């Protein structure tokens, strides 16, 4: 019902937008020969904003040709504009004795080829292009009598410097994280993968924000139809603005109403590069320090970058710890509730007596108590996240001491429940990318356990499993490689096999090139004199 309603709303909005879009892009206006006319048009389009700079000047050897440069203050590098655009145009051009100004169109070629000392120059003849590029940070040069404009890439604005990734931490391995500038992020990826087939495709999405989007993949590894599918899904987005990768995520999901995220994200260039090398595509958005990676498998939520930098045994062990922690964070309160209200015989008698004594005199049934505590915990967590750092201590004091301690001593909540909930809370932080999912599932499972005990827990788990099995991420089954089973890819699922043993890319991604390395990568000890291999 909800789904139907959402779909309908979405459809209506889409129709409206496509109408709007068709009106806007009806007729491209070409530049005229008259400079004043061109400037007038640009002023009309860009409005009276104070940050739009239009600088008139006279160029050529006898200062008789009018010209103007247009840029947006703050988006361009002023030094570059002054030294490499204005100075050559106004000074150096005059030094040249040849009279090139006779022919206007050859003048603009001359400026482009011999005067400006900047890298990227685009020649445009349509005014919409000029406006959109100026808004993106280009500097435009218009010359009297020429129907073309030069667009110079002299972008330069303040941005956050590259810092350590804040959310995906690793003790070993590179520290750097993405920042908010698209070019910096693509450069970070390019620096890791110097393969010429690493392709960075650009798109502009957002009717008003015109946000720059980049799709990063390696040609020859990724399945070709996957790229077409991603492009198709991105191109049908017609939103006002794309403020973060989170926007893109919600527009391209396979199962838009799913609680489970079927699009991966990472703020680390090394993780993103590893996924791209496995045959995935990354989607970067200007203004977002995260990269989306598609397709995503459920197992990715339990993989951490450090798994691959640490030794395999410990990495595999940690992976099991993460599975266990996730299971605890979802099921522990529910199992406690089920045991206390339905299956008391399962607890050993001494433990049962202790727990029963602690629960004596508590007014709430254990199910309601659990839900109450879970919600309280979520409130505390949210408060800790949102409020100013300086107040942080207050929350922990109130949360830990007042609520934890005094609720128990006042007899409102049983002490075992506090223990259960604290364990759950800690466990939920082990796999942070799954924490929000865990919180929702936890409440659902506790409610069912309160009504139906372990039977309900199993029923709801089977339903969740069946739902998970039906999910797809860009056509790839979400639960692969476990089901549908792919034995070779299990090397990086329940265990993390040594790197030299992982010869092939995950088969569920169906890459063009399945081989990751030659199969005999196991390191060998050098031969001894007797000809036998010696191990350490």
């Amino acid at each position: 019902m909800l789904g139907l309603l959402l779909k309908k709303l979405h459809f209506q909005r889409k129709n409206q937008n496509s109408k709007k879009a068709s009106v806007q892009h009806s007729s491209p206006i070409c530049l005229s020969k008259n400079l004043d006319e061109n400037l007038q048009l640009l002023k009309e389009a860009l409005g009276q904003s104070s940050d739009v700079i239009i600088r008139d000047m006279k160029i050529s050897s006898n200062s008789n040709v009018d010209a103007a440069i247009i840029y947006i203050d703050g988006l361009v590098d002023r030094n570059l504009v002054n030294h490499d655009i204005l100075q050559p145009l106004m000074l150096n051009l005059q030094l040249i004795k040849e009279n090139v100004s006779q022919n206007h169109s050859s003048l603009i070629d001359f400026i482009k080829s011999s005067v400006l000392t900047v890298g990227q120059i685009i020649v445009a003849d349509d005014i919409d292009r000029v406006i959109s590029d100026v808004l993106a940070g280009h500097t435009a040069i218009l010359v009297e009598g020429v129907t073309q404009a030069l667009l110079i890439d002299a972008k330069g604005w303040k941005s956050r410097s590259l810092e350590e990734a804040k959310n995906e931490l690793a003790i070993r391995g590179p520290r750097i994280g993405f920042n908010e500038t698209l070019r910096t992020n693509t450069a970070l990826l390019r620096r890791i993968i110097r393969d010429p087939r690493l392709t960075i495709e650009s798109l502009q999405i957002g009717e008003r924000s015109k946000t720059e989007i980049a799709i990063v993949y390696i040609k020859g590894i990724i399945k070709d139809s996957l790229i077409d599918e991603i492009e198709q899904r991105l191109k049908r987005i017609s939103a006002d603005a794309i403020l973060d990768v989170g926007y893109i995520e919600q527009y391209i999901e396979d199962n838009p109403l799913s609680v489970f995220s079927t699009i991966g994200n990472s703020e680390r260039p090394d993780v993103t590069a590893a996924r791209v090398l496995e045959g995935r595509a990354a989607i970067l958005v200007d203004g977002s320090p995260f990269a989306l990676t598609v397709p995503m498998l459920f197992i990715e939520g339990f993989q951490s970058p450090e798994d691959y930098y640490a030794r395999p045994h410990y990495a595999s062990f940690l992976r099991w710890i993460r599975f266990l922690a996730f299971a605890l964070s979802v099921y522990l309160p529910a199992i406690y509730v089920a045991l206390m209200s339905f299956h008391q015989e399962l607890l050993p008698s001494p433990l049962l007596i202790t727990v029963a004594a602690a629960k004596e005199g508590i007014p709430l049934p254990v199910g309601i108590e659990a839900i109450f505590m879970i919600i309280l915990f979520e409130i505390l967590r949210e408060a800790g996240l949102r409020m100013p750092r300086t107040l942080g201590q207050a929350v922990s004091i109130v949360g830990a001491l007042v609520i934890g301690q005094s609720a128990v001593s006042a007899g409102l909540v049983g002490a075992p429940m506090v223990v259960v909930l604290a364990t759950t809370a800690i466990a939920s932080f082990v796999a942070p990318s799954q924490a929000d999912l865990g919180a929702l599932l936890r409440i659902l499972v506790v409610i069912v356990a309160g009504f139906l005990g372990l039977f309900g827990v199993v029923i709801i788990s089977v339903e969740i499993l069946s739902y998970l099995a039906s999910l797809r991420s860009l056509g790839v089954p979400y639960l692969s490689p476990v089901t549908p089973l792919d034995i070779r890819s299990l090397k990086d699922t329940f265990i993390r096999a040594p790197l030299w043993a992982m010869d092939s890319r995950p088969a569920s991604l169906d890459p063009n090139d399945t081989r990751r390395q030659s199969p005999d990568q196991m390191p060998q000890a050098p031969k001894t004199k007797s000809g036998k291999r010696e191990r350490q």
Partner: protein
Amino acid sequence: MLLEKGKISNFQLSALIIGFVFGSSVIISPGGGAGHDAWIAVALGLMEGLLIAWIFTALSKQFKGKTIIEISSLVYGKIPGKCISVLFIWYLFHLGAMVLNNYVRFFKLEVYPATPKIVILLLIMLICASTVGRGIEVLARCSVILVPLTVLIAFTDILLVIPHMDLNNLKPVLDVPIGILLWAAHGAASFPFAETIAFLMVLAFVDKPEKGPSAVSGGLLIAGFILIIVAARNTAVLGQMDEIVNYPSFLNAQVIDIGDMLTRFEVVVAINLIAMGFIKVAVLFYGTVLGLAQVFNLRSYRTIILPVGILMAILTCTNVGSTLEMFDFAKNAYPIYAVPFQIGIPLVTLIVAKLRKLPQTGGDKV
């Protein structure tokens, strides 16, 4: 017009078969009636089950990519074929209701005496219906996760009761009169092994049909092997009690005691078996709705999931009056009632198809 676009692999088919055979047989032990020779009865039943599986896999191999509904239309002609199809669908539908009954009555009696039966019934029904709505692919993927888990639990269970076993309970071997043993063996064949006849609705969607028969018999062998061990275990642990109690496997788990810490975790074992019941009911439910959709040329089987589910729930509530009546039917009437469906329909269809030299175009002869 394709009603089901999904494809399942042979491995998934084997997992589905194992889950299906475990179905309710982990609650109600097959081979009852043969006393302490129950495990021999189960082994003989497995043989018979394999023979029957050979018949229906041969049939489905001959008509690749076709369910029994389409096959019988081809073999018998339109109207008679549909009549036979409706009979077959009835069998699936009724069997689904019986399996649900086994589970619901078991939970009512042993685990949740105060909970109304309808709540348990509707919840199992709901998860089956939602999975069937997602298609055979999703069901097969679930079975790949659930079946290994259950096998693991079954083996742990067996390991933990080893201290309570008395192998003398199994002696003397082959003591039961041969007639009774064979009857019990046929009982074990009709429930659960030959019930895999329901896979005539699923085999059409296997991605490598030529390997379908080996996947079916492989699944049957694994499940049968575990059921033989379970039957032997029940007798060894419970002795004479095995014949008397309604749910010997459940009682078995009750004796488990790990260092006075973990006792009475039969609930955990029992509840894990829901997963298997889920696979069995879902396969039967799927066969019913897909069969009905094919008989009546519907565009999608998803539209009739809700009405068929409600009907199945109603049949579950009404078809037997008491738990003892259910056991009586399962032991004395069901082995005969099931013969026309489990052996009759596939065998006759196969013979008629051979005589009429069907299918005439394409398709390999067996």
